[in-house]
């Protein structure tokens, strides 16, 4: 019964992924494969002065984005789990960020954030928060964080909905009981709700990490890795290497490194989180 799903995933996801793995050990000359069995692509990567900066930016991107998604998602979910007609509407509205294609989302945000014509800078200035409109996407010190904020907006809906459902699934008797025992709201949340939703919480965290690693359109359209490469992350750098520079071998090697980092991160996270599940059981 599970075979169709397994076959589909093996054929159309792992198949191409294997291709990437193979290409990472293939030497390319003028865009043509010439020989398999070489480490030259990995060596090139290590020698690339950009690579360290890319890794650093990627760390901000993945960790910042994941943390933001789950923290904000949890906060929104806690609110949306309240039974009310208003939250019912909000639960429907929250899917809005998801419905437009990435490219259009990126363009809309780019427009809103633009220092000269954007509504965000204009509003901040009108409120007296900044003296002049800021160039959010032109300032190397801010750009990474601005991108993270946008991606959180884009990715938080699913996280929120899964967590909302999970919170609403927590048996109300448990919450009643802890109230009667004199626990305040925070204590109830921390010691009753959190353990109950530990599994879905872990799952959405892993999913966010995977999403963040793969996300490419948003940063690429919004900044193209600029200014001065300060928003160049693994996924955009891989795209640049493969489709702009035609360095297919190096791009594949980078993808392999990217995958290994992600796998390590996910494993680490799952190992840590395992304790909280076993406590629940």
């Amino acid at each position, binding site marked *: 019964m599970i075979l169709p799903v397994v076959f589909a995933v093996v054929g159309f996801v792992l198949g191409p992924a294997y291709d990437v793995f193979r290409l990472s050990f293939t030497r390319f000359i003028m865009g043509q494969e010439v020989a398999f069995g070489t480490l030259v692509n990995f060596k090139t990567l290590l020698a690339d002065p950009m690579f360290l900066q890319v890794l650093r930016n990627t760390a901000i991107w993945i960790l910042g984005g994941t943390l933001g998604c789950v923290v904000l998602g949890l906060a929104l979910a806690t609110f949306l789990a309240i039974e009310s007609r208003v939250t019912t509407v909000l639960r429907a509205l929250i899917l809005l960020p998801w419905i437009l294609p990435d490219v259009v989302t990126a363009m*809309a945000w780019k427009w809103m954030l633009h220092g000269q014509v954007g509504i965000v800078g204009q509003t901040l200035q009108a409120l007296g928060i900044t003296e002049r409109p800021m160039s959010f996407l032109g300032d190397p010190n801010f750009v990474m964080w601005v991108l993270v904020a946008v991606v959180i907006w884009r990715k938080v809906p699913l996280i929120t909905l899964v967590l909302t459902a999970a919170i609403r699934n927590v048996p109300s008797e448990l919450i009643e009981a802890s109230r009667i025992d004199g626990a305040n709201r925070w204590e109830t949340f921390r010691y009753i709700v959190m353990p109950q939703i530990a599994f879905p919480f872990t799952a959405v965290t892993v999913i966010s990490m995977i999403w963040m690693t793969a996300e490419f359109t948003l940063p690429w359209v919004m900044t193209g890795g600029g200014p001065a490469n300060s928003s160049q992350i693994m996924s955009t750098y891989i795209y640049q290497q493969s489709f702009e520079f035609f360095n297919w071998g190096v791009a594949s090697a980078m993808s392999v490194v990217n995958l290994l980092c992600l796998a390590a991160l996910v494993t680490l996270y799952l190992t840590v989180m395992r304790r909280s599940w076993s406590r629940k059981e």
Partner: protein
Amino acid sequence: MTREPIATTLFALCAGVIALYITFPILWLILASFKPASELARLPATILPDEFTLGAYRDLLTAGTQSSQLLDWRRLIANSFFISVTSTVIVVVLASIAGYAFARIPFPGRDLILGGLLVSRMFQGAVLLLPTYRLMVFLGLHDSPWALILIYSAFGLPFATWIITAGLREIPMELEEAAMVDGASRLQTMIRVILPLAVPSLVTAALWHFVGSWAEFAFASILLESPEKKTVTLGLVNFVDYFTLEFNRVGAAAGLVALPILVIFFFGQRYFTRGLLQGAVKG
């Protein structure tokens, strides 16, 4: 009881902030679509259109104007519907079957395989574009909607399986056992007892997958070539590319593309909410 007004105010305030946060960028685009280009060029920007116009929509839809000749929206939308609906049907059917197995039938390595499926999403992103293109050329499917249907299904299946498995695990085993004791076969039980209860998770998985397929761009851009096969997302991106700075047109086009999704959510929402409630009541 004395805390009630404060709590209500706080509640309303939170709700307002959240609503604004979620909807603002989209609202902003839609508002822009009702403003004339000259108003968009003015600074400081107006919030509501000073001069309300449907010009951008007219340009978008009327035959004979420049922008509509480039793109046949009706065909684009039809193509996207075909691809998204077909892929969603495939995903929901296969994921339900697999989900049932994962939720109900113990077999060795069950959780490992389910986890493995979910983690297979790690292999994704721009780098898979070219290998996938090669694979589809090899299968003779490039420039065919079926290539996208297959790819989207393969990408969507793990997550859909996970949602449906989780949904099925919430359904008490006793119901099923009772049906079986009454002499129903496994298949009958699955269709008559489990399926109706699983509707919320099925709807959730279906809606989610549909939206993902509808809005997908990267694979559609590399796999489709003929203009008559392109999807609405490709059309939208081309359109946005022409009129980068004319956000009234961009907003109108984005609204047009988002409309089918909004309609679907409008009708799907009932099930969605009921599903969430169901889970809570039962829990």
